[in-house]
């Protein structure tokens, strides 16, 4: 899971202390992924080395962390790209949705649609592999191949259904809470959400099926 991007997302909302980041991260993710404070500080040190955050030492020796311009750009790239289904554990997507939902710079609907399009595309590729079938000379190997593809297809389906549900829940909760918090016109929210869906053809190319290239 991408702790570094989650920390960047928290820092987007203002400077934070290392320990504060740990507790905020845990609160934001419903205590599902406890972090040890050492992990937070090593991650921050790495982010600082890469110029994505800047540390300021206060009079009492405590370090307060700020997001740099490069950090903003890195966060934007995370939100606008799709999580590879093969390389990264699924939790990164959960984290991305959690933080995109509260980030002023991310459009959660766009994040969801981009991921959905990327996942559907990888499912299309898996289905093609399945339709092409095995070489036919070894039924046992062909069955194993089909079962493996089926497994990947169901995982992808689960992800898309989960994304659909996330979107439906957001639609059910967002307008009301935004209206009460900001006193915005209640009509503005759904229209903005619809208009903010991604431009066609911009979905990131999904990584190829992990099973690809068997033959």
């Amino acid at each position: 899971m991408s702790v570094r991007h989650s920390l960047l997302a928290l820092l987007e909302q203002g400077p934070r202390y290392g320990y504060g980041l740990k507790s905020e991260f845990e609160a934001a993710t419903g205590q599902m992924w406890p972090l040890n404070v050492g992990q937070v500080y090593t991650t921050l040190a790495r982010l600082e080395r890469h110029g994505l955050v800047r540390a300021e030492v206060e009079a009492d020796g405590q370090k307060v962390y700020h997001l740099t311009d490069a950090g903003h750009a890195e966060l934007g790239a995370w939100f606008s790209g799709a999580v590879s289904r093969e390389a990264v554990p699924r939790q990164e997507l959960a984290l991305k949705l959690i933080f995109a939902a509260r980030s002023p710079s991310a459009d959660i609907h766009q994040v969801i649609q981009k991921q959905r399009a990327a996942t559907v595309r990888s499912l299309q590729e898996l289905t093609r592999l399945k339709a092409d079938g095995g070489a036919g000379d070894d039924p046992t190997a062909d069955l194993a191949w089909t079962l493996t593809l089926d497994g990947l297809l169901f995982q992808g389906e689960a992800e898309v259904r989960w994304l659909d549900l996330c979107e439906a829940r957001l639609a059910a909760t967002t307008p009301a809470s935004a209206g009460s918090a900001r006193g915005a016109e209640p009509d503005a929210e759904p229209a903005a959400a619809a208009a903010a869906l991604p431009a066609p053809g911009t979905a990131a190319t999904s990584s190829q099926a992990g099973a690809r290239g068997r033959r």
Partner: protein
Amino acid sequence: MTPVLDVRDVTREYGSGHTTVTALSGVSVTVLPGELVAVMGPSGSGKSTLLALAGGLDRATRGQVLVDGHDLGALGARALAELRRRSIGYVFQELNLLATLTAAENVALPLELDGARPRAAASQARALLDELGLAELTGRFPEELSGGEQQRVAIARAVIGQRRLLLADEPTGALDSLTGETVLKLLRRQCDNGCAGVLVTHDVRHAAWADRVVFLRDGRLVDQTAPADDLHGPRDPESVP
């Protein structure tokens, strides 16, 4: 290549004045011969409206729907019915097989309605059922068939004759995964043989059989996707003429 289905900037509104409901808004989609396009989106996003317009079962408020170059909005009722009967096949979740007719008679029905001789129609229906692996079932009545078999008969009825466009709305219904896949493979095969297909579905594993998946939301086409190596159809809805 001329598209079999050419939906051009179509809007469909119901009602008028303050009560106007926009089911589809400025949607453009083309489907080429040999191409299967899946339509996905939440309930109420306009999927079924799009399918009804494509099949001439409903008329656009604005924009044009062309099937094989015929503007459906410009056709009279009789010509439209003829085009629907001859060129368009429908597969719905409710199979609408006639209980008093055998599988072969159900499949032959569109040809007979179109004036074919019953014997010729029956032989064509049997040949098609044979091709779809249903040779043993031609004489059975719908209630004597399993859900999957009934669905395959419904697909045979949808593709018989010189159908150019296949429209399927959740065609796998409540079928189990493997039987549902058989139905999808049939649709896929019909398209590989030159039909154009539109598949409306909630099931992403079924949509994945398509060459392209288009996403509707609130009556608008918001995105579409094709496998990375696909050169078959337009990827960008803006590029559709």
